[in-house]
């Protein structure tokens, strides 16, 4: 029993340590470290996860251009927790600036590159994945693209494009 208590205390202490580290990394905008620490928290210390942590992890995902996981991390935030207005604003921002796509092809070209760094990074990531894997599923900035020479218009919203849905 005592051993179990010690183990539980040790696990919590590790969660606290990781949370402190995470907060420091987020403050210093060290997004790769934020990403790595968040994954460790998810894997082993879920009780330490708060809305602020999900929010910072969402920002880390945006920095590397993964807008889908950024939105998913925002959706994880507790509706009775902190910073709800900020979280709702960011989700709305993603909803109005991006569209959900399911592209299969070999080459993706936007009509014009977005100005915002995270949106630009999202396009670059999608292009890289399409070239390497032949498909991309995720969120992309609204606008006109050419997929293997065919024009595709991406509308805003967290729903699949009408052309793909029966």
């Amino acid at each position: 029993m005592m051993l179990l208590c010690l183990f539980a205390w040790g696990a919590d202490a590790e969660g606290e340590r990781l949370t402190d580290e995470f907060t420091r990394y987020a403050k210093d905008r060290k997004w790769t470290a934020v990403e790595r620490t968040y994954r460790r928290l998810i894997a082993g210390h879920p009780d330490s996860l708060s809305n602020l942590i999900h929010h910072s992890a969402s920002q880390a995902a945006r920095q590397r251009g993964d807008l889908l996981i950024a939105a998913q991390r925002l959706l994880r935030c507790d509706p009775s927790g902190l910073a709800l207005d900020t979280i709702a604003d960011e989700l709305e921002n993603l909803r109005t600036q991006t569209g959900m796509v399911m592209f299969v092809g070999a080459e993706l070209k936007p009509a014009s590159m977005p100005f915002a760094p995270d949106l630009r990074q999202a396009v670059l990531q999608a292009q890289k994945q399409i070239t390497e894997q032949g498909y991309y599923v995720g969120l992309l900035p609204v606008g006109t693209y050419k997929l293997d020479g065919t024009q595709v218009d991406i509308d805003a919203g967290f729903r699949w494009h009408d052309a793909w849905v029966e």
Partner: protein
Amino acid sequence: MLLLLLNNALACDPSDLVRAEKRGEEAFAQNDIDAVTQASKDAAKALRCTTPTPEQLARLHRLSAYHAGLERDWATAEESWRASLAAHPLLPPEKALWANPRLHLAWARAQETGVQYSVSSSRQPIAGIRTPLIPNTKPLKSSKQGQKRTLRSAGVGLLAAAGGLYGGAWAARVEYDRQGRDGEKAADRRLMYNVTNSLSIASAGVATLGGALLVVSIAR
């Protein structure tokens, strides 16, 4: 008439799916595992008469995740969450999910793992989405497809049986003719006469039923 009867026997209401999903979600909020089980079964049954939208399919898999969560089967819960994410990766969560932190965690882990796809050569509509991408998540048993397959198999089986019966009738007729050539009495040939007619009528009946099942399986 036969087609109408068959079609009515297999009929269901497309809105059954939406109703069953809503019932299941309400049952989850009350931790009522039996009601979630029943709603999952009803929703799966309703698939036979409707092609679900991505949102409906995602909710259906989410219902499986709820069920697994209430049974504390976290591996199945995570697998169901991933299937739900493949259908719709940004389905808004329900508040009741935060009352079950372990299930919430399974959802988060499924999102972090993500869904991998393989590219098929054809563009098949999967759960209402036309795409050559096949997610590596657990497939949903479509009772609509299963029912069509069963009907088609039964139809083909009955047509084959009708062929067999007709073959029997033909053999009986050959025997009847042979008895005539051999000069047997009409009373002695009566048996073969009856067998020929019975098998012919039976083969026509069975062929009609088999054909009807085939038509229904194609039309549904």
